[in-house]
């Protein structure tokens, strides 16, 4: 039975909801905010599903919305933290020698936003570089460069990371 894009989108959302939550949670760090992020992403996706051109692009299209929603949330939280430079919310790059957490999960969450996204989509969501490039609407070579930079910061080599 063939359905229209709207129904397909709904089905996709219902089937993959736990994945969305995990990604949102990795940005939000708490359940309530993570649920808000996913909820907003679903509302936007279904309200503007007309921007989805074909079924094939569904996954990258939805992740784009979800990632944007997550970033929007982070920006908002930063704004609501009343301090000039927001020292603790401004995620610093981890330079060599910096005392970093031993937990790679936390380390990834502290990377520069774009690098963070690329690493999460690549390793957690197992997207191809091309899919990441589509999701983030970023040039493929930029994606590669940023991924490489991220891995270097995490002290991982491309080979080790299996990329």
């Amino acid at each position, binding site marked *: *039975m*063939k*359905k*229209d894009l*709207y*129904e397909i989108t*709904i089905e996709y*959302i*219902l089937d993959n*909801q*736990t994945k969305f*939550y*995990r990604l949102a*949670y*990795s940005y939000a760090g708490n*359940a309530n905010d993570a*649920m808000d992020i*996913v*909820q907003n992403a*679903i*509302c936007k996706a*279904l*309200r503007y599903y007309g921007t989805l*051109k*074909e079924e094939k692009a569904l996954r990258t299209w939805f992740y784009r919305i979800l990632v944007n929603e997550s970033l929007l949330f982070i920006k908002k939280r930063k704004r609501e933290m009343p301090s000039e430079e927001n020292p603790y919310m401004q995620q610093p790059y981890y330079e060599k020698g910096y005392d970093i957490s031993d*937990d*790679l*999960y936390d*380390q*990834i969450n502290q990377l520069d936003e774009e690098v963070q996204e690329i690493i*999460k989509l690549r*390793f*957690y969501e197992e997207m191809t570089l091309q899919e990441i490039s589509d999701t983030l609407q970023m040039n493929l070579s930029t994606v590669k460069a940023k991924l490489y930079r991220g891995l270097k910061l995490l002290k*991982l080599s491309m080979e*080790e*990371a*299996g990329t």
Partner: protein
Amino acid sequence: MNKKLEEAKKKYDRTEIPEEYSKRVEETVAKMRREHQQEQKKRRRKGIYRGTFAGIGAVAASFVLLLNTSVVFASEMQSIPVLGAIAKVLTFRSYETTQDDIKISVEIPNVQIAEEESAALDAAPTETPAQTETSAGTETLAPAETVTETSPAVEEVDQEKLTEEGISLDSPSLETIREENKTLADSVNEDIYRFCTQYAQEAIQVAEDYRTAFLETGGTEEEWKQHNIEIKVWYEIKAQTENTLSFIVSGAQNWSSAYSQSRYYNLDLQTGSQILLKDLLGEDYVSVIQKSVEEQIPAKEEQLGMEFWDSQEITAAVEKAAEENRFYMNENGNPVVVFEKYEIAPGAAGSVEFEIPKQ
């Protein structure tokens, strides 16, 4: 993969999902779907479908064409033996056709309310025009008057078609139909006819749009064919007593539940009026339904093994169903309120019905 990275992924995959999360997602989807459906309805009312004005005329034309060329255009009047003496629901027109690999089947009902003397004649069917089924080619049709409010083009073609097929248009004598009830039957029949033809036209439009988009984005005719798109308009008689008649006319498409539509008809055969929830449950029928639905939900939840939406959603759904008089009457004479799929429960529950006892 690097061990540390593997561990990070494991940690990610183990992210605990809050218990209420899935319900919240489903509620969000339900809310958005409702918004979407209302939007669709609004667009339909305005006659704008996906911004194509040009399309409407084209489709109206193709619908006429469809009526005109359909081989199985069954113009016979079938007698449905569900109804007793006073009223009959007959298939006024039914046809099946395929256009661009879109299968369309339509069954338009027609209500006839006869006065008691003529009802007695039912034993001898040939005497009652509405039930007449004579030799092929001379089947009786419902009064042409019932279609007066439809587009003249369609009506004209219908008649032309009927003549072509050698079918005589022998309207049953309206004398056998009680005066005041004749008005009811007429207005109801007009309403049904309009609903059915409009639904079919719009559904074809939507399916054609889909087809165009499908072909434009690289789909082949062959693949399109495999979609097996079907559009159906049909009716279902829910209950009938000596004085009341309940039936539902529905339109649906197999590829998208978003476009399904149903009309609920509850007729009082004595007074000749449509029965409303207000008539059965009193002025504060909304709160009566609200209360009854709330009471019945726990049992339904258990029976279906799923949790319904929260009370806020349910209140909104009840108000909507009540406002639309979305119900039928069962054999006990109680109204049964119908909630659409996703309206108050997860999609797996399908549409959910609640019998509301009269007080």
